[in-house]
């Protein structure tokens, strides 16, 4: 690990001021950053510890029915907050499907959103990676690519974003509150992430010194509480990143869908909002055929970035499954294995 300065920021103003300097990064839960530093994959010269920033560890339920989640709220605390889990079940489900209990206890919500990709070539210092070293090349291309992107990738980077949490956030129009040298601004999470294009080293719209202070879910998101799920396909039962995942929400009146939400994880360098799929379900019946049509639209731009063509069909099947579950489920309760597909307890009850 390189030498670095460490600074404990007393307040947001100081944090932002220190965060502007070259080579500075913010330290929250540290569950991703410290690993990257140990592997010598990122080499910050200054760590600005924001864990003591006052007021950022609160979950505030807003009068209009939305919620404002402080940047330092720990993943576990949010997922297990009874009101939050009731109003935003797919988000809670996504949180609990990620990492392990120990990591969720330490990791913050803003840190979750800021996770770096888990592309093995990004993590392997011996491999060329345009994210780590712009212009070096991308060894993931032509490599072991089953976990790589099928949407929005470029010749320079085919990595995916690893966050589960961000997927329902994007589906339900979460907004990121940012404080920075130029003052405060709100940005939709969907626009917060950048696709790789020619500059895969740029991952978010954050400018130097800018700090996430909160994440908001609008009141509208809570309207899906009765019909919202996050499903995740992974290589083993737990403690694995998604091969593909889907956050789905439906508002159903009578036998008609009045609004649908869909975002996919594990398919692109950002959670992939599938608006065409959402639109096609408006006013339709909540049936398998309709969902199958939506799934085709959701993946219509998908193309393999390597030997991962199977993910396209897998994602389609997952979309159908997620909507089917969403249509019948009331996820006021969480299953013992959140987001698991093969959850036999759940299956046997069907």
């Amino acid at each position, binding site marked *: 690990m390189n030498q670095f300065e460490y600074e404990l920021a007393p307040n947001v103003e100081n944090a932002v001021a220190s965060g502007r300097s070259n080579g500075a990064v913010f330290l929250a839960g540290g569950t991703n950053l410290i690993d990257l530093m140990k592997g010598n994959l990122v080499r910050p010269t200054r760590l600005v510890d924001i864990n003591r920033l006052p007021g950022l560890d609160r979950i505030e339920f807003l009068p209009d029915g939305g919620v404002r989640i402080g940047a330092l709220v720990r993943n576990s605390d949010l997922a297990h907050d009874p009101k939050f889990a009731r109003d935003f079940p797919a988000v809670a489900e996504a949180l609990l499907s990620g990492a392990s209990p120990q990591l969720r206890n330490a990791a913050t919500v803003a840190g979750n959103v800021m996770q770096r990709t888990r592309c093995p070539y990004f993590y392997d210092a011996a491999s060329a990676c345009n994210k780590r070293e712009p212009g070096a090349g991308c060894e993931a291309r032509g490599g072991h690519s089953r976990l790589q992107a099928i949407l929005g990738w470029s010749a320079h980077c085919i990595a995916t974003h690893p966050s589960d949490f961000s997927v329902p956030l994007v589906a339900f129009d979460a907004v990121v509150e940012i404080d920075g040298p130029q003052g405060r601004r709100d940005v939709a999470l969907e626009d917060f992430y950048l696709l790789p294009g020619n500059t895969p080293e740029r991952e978010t719209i954050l400018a130097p010194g800018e700090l996430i202070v909160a994440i908001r879910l609008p009141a509208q998101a809570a309207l899906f509480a009765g019909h919202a799920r996050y499903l995740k396909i992974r290589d083993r*039962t737990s*403690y694995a990143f998604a091969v593909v995942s889907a956050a789905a929400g439906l508002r159903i009146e009578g036998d008609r869908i009045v609004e649908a939400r869909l975002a996919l994880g594990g398919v692109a360098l950002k959670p992939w909002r599938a608006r065409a799929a959402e639109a096609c379900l408006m006013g339709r019946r909540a049936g398998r055929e309709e969902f199958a049509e939506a799934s085709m639209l959701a993946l219509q731009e998908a193309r393999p970035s390597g030997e991962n063509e199977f993910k396209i069909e897998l994602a389609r099947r997952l979309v159908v499954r997620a909507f089917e579950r969403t249509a019948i489920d009331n996820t006021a309760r969480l299953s013992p294995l959140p987001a698991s597909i093969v959850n036999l307890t759940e*299956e046997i009850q069907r």
Partner: protein
Amino acid sequence: MNARVIASGVHQSAIHDSAARHVQGSALYIDDMKEPEGLLHGWVILSDRAHARILMLDLSSVEAAEGVVCVMTARDIPGLNDAGPIMKGEVLLADQIVEHEGQAIAIIAARSFAQARDAAKLVRVTYEDLPAYLTIEAALQAERFVVAPLHMQRGDAARAIAEAPHCLSGETSAGGQDHFYLETQIAVATPQENGEMHIFSSTQHPTEVQHIAARLLARPYAAITVEVRRMGGAFGGKESHASLIAGMAALLAARCGEPVKLRLSRDVDMLLTGKRHDTLARFSVGFDDAGRILGLDMMIALRAGHVADLSGPVLTRALCHVDNVYWLPNVKVSGYACKTNTVSNTAFRGFGGPQGMFAIEAVIVRIAERLGLSSEAVRQINHYGPGQDTTPYGQSIGENNTPRLLEELKTAADIARRRGEIAQFNASHPYIKKALVTYAVKFGISFNLPSLNQAGALLHVYTDGSVHLNHGGTEMGQGLYVKVAQIVASCFQIEREHVHISSTRTDKIPNTSATAASSGSDINGMAAKAAADIIKSRMAAIAAAKFGGAADDVVFSGGYVYLGNRSISFPDLAQLCWAERVSLSATGYYRTPDIHFDQASMTGSPFYYFSYGACATEAAIDILTGENRILRVDIIHDTGASLNPAVDIGQIEGGFVQGQGWMTMEELVWDQAGRLRTHAPSTYKIPTSRDVPPIFNTHLLADAPNAKPTIFRSKAIGEPPFTLAISCFLAIQEAVAAAAGWPAALTLCAPATPEAILRALGGGKEGSAFCEQKAAKKLF
């Protein structure tokens, strides 16, 4: 006489000797030990080509890097550049030619770990690529083998197949497996005076580390002392390959005159050290209407990697386990250890046995499919039985516990009722399919090579009655130390807290075998008992003299020593022995009796006895996503009169879940250039706690002491339960059959990952017909 017996001897569920310290973090692994002053950190420079000639190796920038103290290549080795455990000429450091990606070409010592690692990146190598053979198939075609092919034969297989009412040919394969011990390979070598060297090595085989370090340093064995208190897992990965790491540390330490620690990162560990051999099996089988195998001709090919290492013995054990619990009247099995330009594969729990046992199950299910029978019926009809109880290599199987295990399993696992429920579930559920299989295993206990079946122990009784215990077995978390301590406690009839366990050292017990082949407690326990018996007889003589009686009538019981109605406490008798000038220290030695094996004809009785087990495994698959879950497992395992039921159940559960990983999720992927693409947990998935079957019932076969006079009539436990997990694959395969029919299910190969399951549901990319056609080309 007081009938008290001790409460902490054999057959008790004693806690692991280090359990509390494991939890508290005070059980010291090598990297936890306080670092000596001046300690240097080693690192390895690896080849990034699968097969190439080194045209130029420029280490000048490495040597000039900050903190670097020395850099060594093959040329700098004072002794022989040879780390081969059996065969000669298996180089430690590549010299001119590299034969796999990840092969060591130079080693570095630097002031810090980071400096060593960073300096390694400054190497400049120019290669001339040579043709690389990466797969079993490529090596088979080129007939590249690391040892001569093996042939085992009984009866006339070809004729039996030709004359059988039915015959078929087939093919199956199973992937490799990384050991993924939590503690990666590590050694600390410290130079001593007079050219001697002390090495802490995380090794299952201290004697071999000693020999190889001596060979590399051109020193006599007696100049090298190897010590290991415990390993953080080993599973066979630290049997021969620990010598590579310890050898490198010793070379650097000798060169620098300072202690050197070499600890591999996970990535380097996975690149540099070997794994379980992946397997390709092809066969022709002749059988009758009931599914009885009349003749079997099978070819088993293992991917050995770039050198032989232990591949010969691994292949022998694979061939010796093709029969599993099945009677094969006419059989020919040929084995090939294929030389490939991938890292040399090595020992791994089961040591080829699982590969052979996996192969025969492909035969079973194909017969069932052809005859329209259940696979269970075909298994059943082929089981060993009276008059049909000799293995293909000519050993009688002795006591056959399979029928009893399967009978008890029926009730324990409630099989009949659950089969009905599963059939109902499958008929009604649109995309989840379940299956339940019962499966029995038989595993041969002893090293296949008779000479390895020997062990030594050293005991000191001190005058306060405390006992110092040392033996040649190593502790890798499996509970060997506590078992041997229980044995000593039982022999002396003193509570186990008085028996002090000490680290395994080559200067205490010389010329040991690896702690491997499940033999740890069998042979080291016997050696410790032998030592205890020697000391007891001396103590008994003193007691007899004191009380006036015959030494034969002296009884050790409950902390006291009795003769008639007189008694003396164990510590008091120890003190008395000292006063009478009687030695209270002894070495014990044991050699396993009655075993022999002729490698040329592949016949004999290599195993002292067989261990048995049976399980019922229920799996579910999602036919749309390919995901699978092992829902319930019931195991009944034969541990004889278990030395420590709690430790044995732990071994059964752990072994099973490790096997579950091999069969369902662990997948090693090499790219077309021969580079391993899965060398970290990000891409290589081992089971986690959530993959443990939610219902997991493990029972030990009751009232089944070993018919052979093993240590307290117990049976070995390390490897046999691993093989039970083959049932995970079989259950998933049956679930695929329930969804898509048997022809599709037969295309499934191991590991049964979600993608493999989806492929099989689609009939396989190649299809079973293609497999059979390929098999017809054959290499029988």
